[in-house]
């Protein structure tokens, strides 16, 4: 009985408080909507139609810049880009002796030609690579090996360059964050690579990496006596991706550094003073205070760098031409070169999905955006 009585006012209070709270919440919601309005208008006006069109076109066989009738083809474009197949290859046997056939030069076992074994319907599969497993030989085929390679190149490029940019950018931000003479000039100098026009920067690096002693790098390597003949950095081979990663890291580290610097600047100094008093060393302060507080700025910087890296176009297009594709430069090739707008749109959607996955996993990994 007594318990019931004591419950009553609380219950009443709960009911009277609720509408009051929701009134405040409603006001907050209204304000939020008003504040979001300019951004939402811009999105609706500028981005909605192009984005929706890309999704739609990716399910059609539309041809770029033509009046040709387009029809709905379902997931065909995606199937053409992403289909892969693993097939076993039988060893070749000499028809006369019945023995296994060996390569006369290397002495290695010969197998059937992948082209005979890979499926041809509905689309022809082509060889991506071959591998051995449990003593058997397999071939990995894809309907569009160029695209699969482009995905591999782009993801490798993205992971390595963004990681290097994060490390270098953080180091530079920490250095510039401390007090020293000419700090202002240093901050301006730091942004120079980011300020150089992207298209021009790609041409500039192409010139510096030229495959003869016209190029700065080959002149320098030659002067050091490290090479006998000039290195063709940008020709197909092992140097292509490292060269592009070096260029991208140089160009975009300032972006990362400046965003992290802003993050460092908004940290209240008294936390560090308190840590100092408690006897925490610089390294301990870095891991216990700086890094956790920097996380939100870091996640945003990572998301936007990754997004740009996954869409990388200029440097692949200018420096490598059509010898090696990134996803976006393959996209360009399909659209402008082959005028296959449906397929190009599907590539766009695949890039979109990649970016989305990366962005979500950064947020999850770093535990940002938890309410």
């Amino acid at each position, binding site marked *: 009985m007594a318990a019931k009585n004591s419950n009553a006012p609380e219950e009443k209070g709960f009911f009277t408080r609720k509408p009051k709270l929701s009134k405040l*919440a409603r006001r*907050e*919601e209204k*304000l*939020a*909507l008003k*504040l*979001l309005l*300019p*951004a939402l208008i*811009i*999105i609706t006006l*500028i*981005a909605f*139609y192009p*984005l*929706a*069109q890309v999704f739609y076109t990716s399910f059609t066989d539309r041809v*770029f810049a033509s009046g040709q009738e387009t029809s709905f083809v379902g997931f065909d474009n995606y199937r053409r880009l992403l289909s892969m197949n693993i097939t076993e290859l039988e060893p070749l046997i000499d028809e006369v002796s019945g023995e296994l056939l060996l390569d006369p030069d290397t002495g290695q076992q010969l197998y059937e030609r992948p082209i005979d074994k890979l499926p041809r319907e509905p689309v022809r599969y082509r060889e991506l690579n071959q591998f051995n497993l449990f003593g058997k030989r397999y071939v990995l085929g894809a309907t569009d090996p160029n695209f699969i390679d482009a995905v591999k190149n782009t993801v490798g490029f993205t992971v390595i360059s963004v990681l290097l940019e994060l490390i270098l950018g953080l180091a530079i931000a920490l*250095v510039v964050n401390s007090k*020293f003479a000419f700090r*202002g*000039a*240093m*901050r301006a*100098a*730091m*942004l*120079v*690579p980011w*300020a*150089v026009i992207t298209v*021009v*920067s790609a*041409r*500039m690096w192409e010139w*510096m990496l030229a495959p003869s*002693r016209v190029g700065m790098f*080959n*002149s320098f390597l030659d002067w050091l006596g490290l090479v006998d003949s000039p290195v063709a950095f940008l020709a197909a081979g092992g140097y292509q991706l490292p060269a592009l990663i070096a260029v991208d890291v140089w160009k975009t580290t300032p972006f990362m550094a*400046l965003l992290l610097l*802003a*993050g460092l*600047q*908004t940290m*209240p100094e008294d936390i560090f003073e308190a840590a100092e008093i408690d006897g925490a060393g610089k390294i301990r302060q870095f891991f216990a205070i700086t890094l956790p507080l920097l996380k*939100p700025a870091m*996640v*945003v910087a990572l*998301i*936007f760098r990754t997004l740009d890296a996954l*869409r990388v*176009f200029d440097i692949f297009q200018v420096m490598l031409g059509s010898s090696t594709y990134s996803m*976006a430069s393959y996209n360009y090739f399909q*659209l402008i070169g082959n005028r296959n707008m449906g397929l*190009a749109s599907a590539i766009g*959607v695949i*890039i*979109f999905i990649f970016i989305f996955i990366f962005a979500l996993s950064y947020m999850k990994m770093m535990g*940002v955006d938890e309410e």
Partner: protein
Amino acid sequence: MKKRTSFFSLIKKAGFYMVILVILVYLLFPFYWAVNSSLKTEAQLFMTPATAVPRDPATLEFAPTLQNYATVLQDNQFLRGLVNSTVVATATTALALVAGSFAAFALGKLRFRGRKPALYLILAMTMFPQVTVLAGLYAVISALGLSARVSMIFSYMIFTLPFTTWVLTSFFKGLPDALMESAQVDGATPFQTFHRILLPLTAPALVTTGLLAFIAAWNEYLFALTFTSIDPTARTVPVAIAYFTGAVARQEPFGEIMAAACLVTVPLVVLVLIFQRRIVAGLTAGAVKG
């Protein structure tokens, strides 16, 4: 004992400046090479081995030329490009910062339904490669009947607005809620709290995102190329540079391109020098206490 610590601190200081020197060389050397190339004639550019300063091919004496700069500065298209780029990049940055900071305040500090979807919707704007959205964007721009410069400003929102919104959201989130509550107790409306108290506190983030967005807009090429195709007088610097033609047909005027690139980078560096003080001046003495 005392002498020893000062000796160590001297070494420490020297080490610190060494690190700064290494960073500067890494960041600036390629730009130095652009300056170096811009001061060379066609013949000097093709010398082997490449020279670290412009040298006479025969005598190897120091022989820089300003010819590339003279040519570039006489190019009306390039000069007009500078004006166009300034107008377009400034307007883009202003619009992206205003719309972005409004949205960021809502997303970072206010509670409302659909916050997360809104955040990702804004990011989704920029997740397609530029080439892919170009056709659809062109259709929108022609349907709206916008002039070349205005269409560049609006189309640049695709990559600047998500950027400013996301960066500023993360900074607003980092500001203590107590700040807003105490302002509300003092009778400030939420909007007053936003532009009188929170906005000044995020000055470093505002300046940083502003600078980065400005440079991104300044350097954009593909949209500019497309939307100025009907109006060549609206061409921005990157497009103007792409239209440089050499003295000999089909030969690329590399020296002139480098001269133009150097000329264009200078105003940006000056801009950063002017605004960089703001990057530090954000949080002055104990604005956030309690």
